């Protein structure tokens, strides 16, 4: 059994089902992200692990011990709250020392560990400040130090970076990963930002409306999303709705009267499907030389790449081309779109069944 184990965990708030049958095993030392849109039950899941919300059903166990109904102060988990929840009337050092004080760690050892934790998050010189005298990024690091200083078996982070501006957020992502690598604490992070989840986790758990829909390593999640929601939520993608047709050893998909070659899938004939292809997997060719013809309606220069919107018979497609220094097709010019067949994903269209 995994280090931290959730079995069929559910939570109802009256008529609202916030979390439904979540089962998840997390190994020691892993960094797992819970990813999903706002209101999908991420915080509720995290708080059930922390012991702040009591599950309506299911079991949670830590290191073989059932902790489903254990009080939060007996679990010993480190929690970083979305609002940081620092104690405003205590200095940074007092905040960090609080958990050790509760564990009756002797004063000299306590001071030593507080100092270590603060230097880990690079705030050693801020020990005597009050939380209100710190910037957002510094408060967030105090919250991390406060949670880590008690050497928790599991660290729980609830959208720890969402209150920071874009540049600081990027820095803190690396910082978080560096700290986690160094300390080796099993970590669960909640986020609604797919880029954040992909860049720092070992595994990503995608949640939709209280359910877990895919658990995978970041690159597999990106390359092999299990449904249309995930393929558009995780990264950008082009989705084309059509009918899947088998033709002996090959297959094709009918979209608005044209057919596009498709990979073989385990589907019945004429099943409604979504074709998904990432913008960066499409190549631009001369008109007629690709799998699909279209006309450039817009082009955006993003520095490292060009982004095109291309009108085709199958629908509007977005295409990303790395900036090689050349002059790409102008708006209004005709182009051909091409791709490798393996980069095309066929996703059963459950919404149109």
């Amino acid at each position, binding site marked *: 059994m995994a280090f931290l184990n959730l079995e069929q965990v559910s939570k109802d708030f009256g008529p609202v089902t916030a979390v439904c049958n979540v089962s998840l095993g997390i190994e020691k030392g892993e960094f797992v992200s819970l990813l999903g849109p706002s209101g999908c039950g991420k915080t509720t899941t995290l708080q059930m692990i*922390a*012991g*702040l919300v009591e599950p309506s059903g299911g079991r949670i166990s830590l290191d073989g011990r059932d902790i489903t109904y254990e*009080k*939060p*102060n007996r*679990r*010993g*988990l*480190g*929690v970083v*709250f*979305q*609002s940081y*929840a*620092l*104690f*405003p*009337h*205590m200095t940074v050092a007092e905040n960090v020392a*609080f*958990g050790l004080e*509760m*564990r009756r760690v002797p004063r000299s050892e306590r001071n030593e560990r507080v100092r270590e934790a603060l230097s880990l998050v690079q705030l050693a010189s801020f020990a005597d400040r*009050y939380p*209100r005298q710190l910037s957002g990024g510094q408060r967030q690091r105090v919250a991390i130090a*406060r*949670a880590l200083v*008690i050497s928790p078996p599991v660290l729980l982070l609830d959208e720890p970076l969402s209150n920071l501006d874009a540049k600081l957020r990027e820095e803190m992502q690396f910082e978080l990963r560096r700290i986690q690598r160094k300390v080796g604490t099993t970590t669960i992070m909640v986020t609604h930002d797919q880029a954040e989840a992909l860049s720092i986790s070992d595994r990503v758990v995608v949640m939709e409306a209280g359910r877990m829909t895919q658990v995978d390593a970041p690159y597999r999640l990106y390359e092999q999303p299990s449904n249309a929601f995930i393929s558009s939520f995780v990264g950008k993608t082009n989705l084309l709705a059509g009918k899947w047709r088998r033709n002996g050893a090959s297959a094709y998909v009918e979209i608005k009267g044209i057919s596009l070659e498709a990979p073989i899938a385990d589907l019945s004939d004429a099943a409604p499907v979504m074709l998904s292809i990432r913008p960066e997997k499409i190549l631009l060719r001369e008109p007629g030389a690709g799998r699909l013809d279209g006309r450039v309606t817009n082009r955006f220069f993003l520095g490292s790449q060009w982004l095109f919107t291309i009108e085709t018979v199958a629908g509007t497609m977005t295409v990303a081309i790395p900036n090689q220094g050349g002059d790409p097709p102008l708006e209004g010019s005709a182009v051909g779109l091409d791709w490798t067949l393996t980069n095309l994903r066929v996703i059963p269209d459950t919404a149109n069944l």
Partner: protein
Amino acid sequence: MIRRSPFTFAPWLLAGPGALFFFGLVILPLCLTVILSFHAYDHSKGIQDTFTLSHYAAVVTDEYYLSIFLRTLRISALTTLICAAIGVPEAYILSRMRDPWRSVFLLVIIGPLLVSVVVRAFGWSMLLGSQGILNQALHLLGLPSAKILYTETAIVIALVHVMLPFMVIPVWTALQKLDPMVEAAAWTLGASRFTALRRIVMPQVSLGVLSGSLIVFGLSASAFAVPALLGGRRLKMAATLVYDEYLQELNWPLGAAIAIIVLVANLCIMLAYNRMIEVRARRTLG
């Protein structure tokens, strides 16, 4: 954009009526009272137009007046203490309630403010009197009857009842501003519910408790209806003493002197208390 003229009338016009009321109803009578307290008084001829400090001297040297001031101080302090002991937990429970109940109980707490203090004092005298419900109940249980009405206990009980909302509301307001996750953070760090309350919640609502106790103390020290109705003729507090000097003895200058002394004493105590706690709380809460 609005162009601001160098002198705008709006602030003055808006603040005017309030300032006028304050001046006419507080400052002016207060000045008149101060002036009155320095007038001499003669039992046969009434108020004289000569300056004297004799009223002040009489009050501060007379055991009788001093004992009443001491009683006022004792009763107000005790009322404040009990209000804090009941009101703070009450406000905490209130702030943790779910919504329909929270509104209901808030109304229950504020509701008594809508009933006149005189009516409530009469209610207590009916409950606590020698033939009151309390003594009837004690009698039924075969216990000796208790003499509560016309004692300091009766005054404190009724004052606590009257003053409780003034403690609950500021503390409740302070609790509303608290991030509930801060308490949860203390739990996850290993604090029991009680420790989290004592170490994390209480220090942050101390300013609410401070303003609540200032209001309760000030109102208790100057309370009139409750001591008048539940203290009886002999158990006097500052306000009832002033009333007696004015309307029984007709010695207005002496009454004025007592009123001024009570005002100054009250002010000193409250300012000192405020300084003591606020300085500490402000330093950490900002």
